[in-house]
Structure formats: C-alpha cells, structure tokens
C-alpha cells in the first residue's frame, strides 16, 4: 500500500460553513495530484460548490448521499441525520477497499460510534482509541510543538490492557507519521509515583515499564503534558477528553486575550509588537487546532475525525494527514507493532505484580 496514490473518502456534510470549506480544501488537494478524493454528501450542493473552484476531475468525484445539505453548521440534529446517511456510504467504501482512509467533519461521537460498528479492529478484541495532538514545549530530539494524546474519545473504559495497546498504537503513529525515531510514552496519572492513582493506572504502569518496543518514561501529571515530557501520552478516554478540551479552551482564551489587546489600545498593540517573538510562540502553539484531525487508531482502516469547526486550512491539513498516513502504510505498521507487543500485555504484569 505504501508509496501509491491513496484514495480518500470525505464525509462532506459537516465542517464550518459546510460544505464550502471542505469542498475548497478537496479541490485544492486534487490539484496537487497526490491523492484521489471522493466527496460524499448532497450531490447537487457539492457540485454547485465545486464549480466555484479549480479542481482535477481525474482525482475528485462526488457521491450523492441522498439527504439535502442542512442549512446549519455545528452540532445539530439535521447535521446528525445527514451524517447518518453519508457515514455508512463512506465506511462501506473503506470496508470494501474502494477507499484507503476516511475524513469526516460530522459530530465526532457519531463518527466514532459508526466507525467502530462498521470496521473491524486490527486485532480481535482490540479497543480503538481516538488520538489527538495537544500543544507542548519543544523537547530534545523533537522540535514539534505537539504531543499525541490518546484516548480522547470520552469513553469510560478503564482497562489497563487497552491503555497498553494505545501506547503501542500512539508510539507507532508518532514514529510513522511525525517521524520521531523512538517516541517517549507517558501515562497520565495523579502523580509520578507509580503506586499512586487508581488500580487500572497502576497495572498499566507496571505493564508499560516491562513492555519492549515502547520507550516508557513513567507517569505524568496533567501539568507535564504542555511541558513536553513525552511525545505520546496515554490515558483513559474520559480523562483524555477532558484534558484535550481544557487545553483547547486555555489556548483559545489566551489567543482571544492577545487579539483583544491588539484591537483595544494602541499602546497595547505596540507592546504586542515588542513581544512579537512571544506572540509567535503563542501562534505556533495555537496552530494545533489546525493540525487536521484526530485519527481513530486500531481499526482496519484509518478514520480521521476532523473538528466540525474546521476551516478550509484545517480541512486541507486533515486531507494531507490522511494521505500521508496511507502513503506511509500506517495501517501495516500498526498491525506489525501490535503483533510484536502481544506478549507483554497487563495480564502478565498483574500476575507478576
């Protein structure tokens, strides 16, 4: 599968100002000639919107989902109904091998639920995880201001075996997609002391410490995530969801404060100019929201969940990221990594501990 032109199927009902941003991004990507794209949604609306852009019809086509484009954006009932029509088409194309990866801008929990129902896990019993990037300080050997946090799905699974699998999946993703040779993996806990925290965290810690193939750096507190103490942070889905939301909220608040200062007083504007290097760092950190999307790791095909608020730039990045994952054979690498890590799962750790 590596080094060939991937086919990406795009659930196009969602996204900010839908479907304008998604269609514009897909049209631009088609001209780059590195992937084939299939837009699934309201065919007449998508066709009219596509007519406003230059594109390559050899690499971009439309599949009608039979439901009119909702005249609203965001998380709304009409959008959910539309997504319930388009998502099965996209997922069926993935399952049948007509597409290599999927990008959706629909409500994330709906995408996750349908993807888990339709696609098989990479290994029987494996729990797929939603992975998201979060902003960090640059760290040694990795100048990328982002770390990978998983699971952020919001599920209440507190299974140490699943957390160990996610460590393998996250480290493999960081190696294959972000190009980090030996990604460090941290476990989110209440304290760096391995004996602290709930049972499932203690069991997961012991298993990860013994596990080969993953460079485990121990427990991390939430405050350590933005400090960049690990390239990959594993956590149960509920806590991960909360941490991700909190980091996004704080970043938004900080950016809003800078923008307020910029437009409110001339003296503050001058101050911001003097602090331009610092503002530049803030900008770099805030760009994680434009990263492109959160991959669901552990399914037989790649599904990227992009934020329903994705701008054209973010939608374009999501398509780029999906293409990169396919070209680098992420799916095959994840399969191989799971096979290699099969003998150090926490059942053994529990007995030993």
């Amino acid at each position, binding site marked *: 599968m590596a080094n060939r032109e991937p086919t990406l199927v795009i659930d196009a009902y969602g996204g900010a100002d839908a479907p304008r941003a998604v269609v514009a991004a897909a049209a631009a990507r088609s001209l780059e000639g590195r992937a084939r794209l299939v837009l699934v949604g309201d065919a007449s609306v998508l066709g009219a919107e596509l007519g406003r852009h230059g594109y390559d*019809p050899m690499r971009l086509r439309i599949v009608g989902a039979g439901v009119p484009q909702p005249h609203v954006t965001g998380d709304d009932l009409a959008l959910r109904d539309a997504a319930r029509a388009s998502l099965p088409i996209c997922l069926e194309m993935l399952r049948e091998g007509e597409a290599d990866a999927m990008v959706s801008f629909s409500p994330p929990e709906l995408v996750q639920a349908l993807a888990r129902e339709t696609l098989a896990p990479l290994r029987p019993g494996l729990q797929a995880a939603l992975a998201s990037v979060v902003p960090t300080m640059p760290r040694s050997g990795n100048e990328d201001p982002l770390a990978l946090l998983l699971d952020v799905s919001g599920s209440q699974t507190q299974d140490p075996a699943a957390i160990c699998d996610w460590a393998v999946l996250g480290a493999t993703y960081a190696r294959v997609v972000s190009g980090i040779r030996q990604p460090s993996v941290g476990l989110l806990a209440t304290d760096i002391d391995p004996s602290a925290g709930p049972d499932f965290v203690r069991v997961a810690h012991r298993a990860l410490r013994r596990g080969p193939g993953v460079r485990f750096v121990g427990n991390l507190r939430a405050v350590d995530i933005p400090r960049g103490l690990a390239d990959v942070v594993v956590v149960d889905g509920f806590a991960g969801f909360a941490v991700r939301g909190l980091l996004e909220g704080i970043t938004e608040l900080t950016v809003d404060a800078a923008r307020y200062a910029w437009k409110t007083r001339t003296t503050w504007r001058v101050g911001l100019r003097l602090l331009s290097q610092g503002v530049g760092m803030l900008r770099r950190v805030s760009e994680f929201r434009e990263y492109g999307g959160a991959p669901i790791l552990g399914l037989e095909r790649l599904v990227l969940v992009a934020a329903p608020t994705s701008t054209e730039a973010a939608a374009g990045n999501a398509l780029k990221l999906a293409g990169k994952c396919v070209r680098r054979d992420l799916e095959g690498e994840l399969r191989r990594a799971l096979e290699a890590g099969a003998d150090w799962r926490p059942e053994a750790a529990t007995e030993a501990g």
Partner: protein
Amino acid sequence: MSAAAAEVVYRWDLDKTYLQTDFHSVGGLVRAAVERPEHKRPVPGMRALMTALSRRRAARIVFVSGSPTQLRGRIEAMFELHGVRCDRLVLKDFAGAIRRGRLRSIKAQIPYKLRAHLETRRWLREQGDVAAEICFGDDAEVDALIYCLYADVVARRVDASRLRALLDHVGAYPDERDAILAALAALPREEVVRRVFIHLDSRSPPSRYDGYGGRVVPTFNAFQIVASLYSDGLCGPTEVRVVADDLITAWRVDGPGIAGSLEDAVRRGIVSSEAAERLAREVLPMGLAGRAGFDAAAAERLLRRVGSMRPPSVAADVALPYERLVEDERAFAAARKMARQAAGRVPGLRDFLEPDAP
C-alpha cells in the same frame, strides 16, 4: 489542404490551449521564445485530439495566437513534427506595434484576436468554406469572451454601433477599430460558431463561464473535450478512444482518471448521460482504458452514479452582456493576481491577531 469544401472549421488558440506555455514568468516567456520545435510540449491529449479530428472528415484548421510573428518558423516546424495540419496560422506583430509606439496593442487581446478571427473567416469563405466552427481556447486570458463576441457580431446579434462602443471601451486604437468594423462588413450574417471549448489550464473555476451561455464549454482536459464532441455528434467513438489511449500511454493517466473525467462532464451537463452510457459500455472498456482500470465493473459503477445525476440546464444562445463581461473578466484577473501574491506571502503578526482583516 483538400480541394473539397470543409465540413467543419476548427479554430484554435495556441499557447495553453494546444501548447504547454508559461507566460506568467519571465523565464517562461524566454523559454517559449527560444525553445526548439522538438522541445515544445502539447497539452496532454491535445495533439491526439487534433490529429484525430482533422483525419475524420474534411476540416480546416486555423490557429490564431498571441505569439509574435518571429516564432512562425519554429511553430510551423513544431506542427510538422507533431503531424498536425495547419491551414492558416495568424500571429501577432509585436515588432510593428513597438515601432508604431502602440504599447496597448502588445497586451490587448480583444481587438487583435477579433480582427484575426474575422479576417480568417473571410479567407475561409474565399476558399469556399462556409462550415460552422468549433473554437478552442483557454482560461489564461479572455478567449471565451472573444470567441462569443466573434460569434455574435457575425450573427449580427451585436450590431456595429455597439461593437464600436465596446472596442473603444477596451482601448482599441481608432484604425484598429475601423479595420475590425470593415472586416465584419465584408462578412454575411451567419451562425458561425457552434461550440467554444475553454481548456481550464489555469484551473479557473468552471463557474467563471456561467455567464457565457451554453455555447461555451469549460473543460479540464482533452478527454472531456472529445467526450463532449461525441455527445454532440461532432465526432465518433474512434476519436474518443484515440484521445483516451494517448492520455494513458503518453501522459500516465489511468482508467479511474478517465472515468472521473467522464463523470464530471456528465455532472456539469457537457456530456449527456446517454452518450456517457455508450462510451462506458461500448467504447472505453474495449480500449487501453479497459486495461488501465476502466473495465466493465467500473463502467457499471460509474453508470449507477451518473444515472442519478441531474445535469444543469444549458442556457440558450442570446446576445451576451459584453460590457458587463469585460468588467467581470477584469475583476477576475485582478482577484487571481491578488491570490497569487497572497499565496507567496508569509503570514505575519497582524494576520494572527486580526484573522478577519481583509
């Protein structure tokens, strides 16, 4: 040239329609001027399209180009190398314009090309050729506007006084304007242009041509042109297969690429679903496209999709609002220039802190 009267006239632009040319950079302009004939590259599939069309039946092939007259020898040599017949080649007299201090003429396309079209039409009539024309241009300049204006002035949907005012508006020199009016007066009233194909070389959105009516067909590649001609009964299945085969063998296009182009053409209403069905079932799977992935199963999948499409209705030919179209084209060119400049700019502090600023 055959002695029999032509059944069709193919009127072509050269740069960016037939030839891959970069005239947005100085390097590209220099390269176009000094490039040897054997190094000039046609737009993918266009050479196959042109030779296939000119072989099929009595046809005249006319080129009207904005390239300088000094390139005549190289261009004619290139046609010979490509095996392309050219019955008349009109080039722009840049040196003459500079000698006479007419700097506006160097850049202006409308007066030069309209006059060239009218005069070549008169030449064709003198040869006894009164066939309707199929015109080929691109989206780099205003080819669609010029071809439509040519069609409407010859059909007298735009009268001489309106044409005079329009030429003044676009900055034609008085003697240039009078020569155009004289060339028009020498032609009888007739419906001269049947179709105008605009190759979207610069990736303009197809909606740019919404205001031009059904005569103008924006296309992304040579396959869409030949499929549209087939749909209109202006060529047969052989020509379609020749162009598809050329794209596959010489330009690394595959079966799904051909299928995607056909599907897009049906969706935009430039190929009928009936024609698409014939091509998908009877023509393309039997050629190289079939071996390159456009097999019977792919054809059936495509037909299921195009069967549910409702192509847009095609507007009837009426006199176009040229004064407004000239302004629209100017605005489009300015917006494209700004977009090119913006694409090369690194976002600064202000872009971050004022994201909604124009």
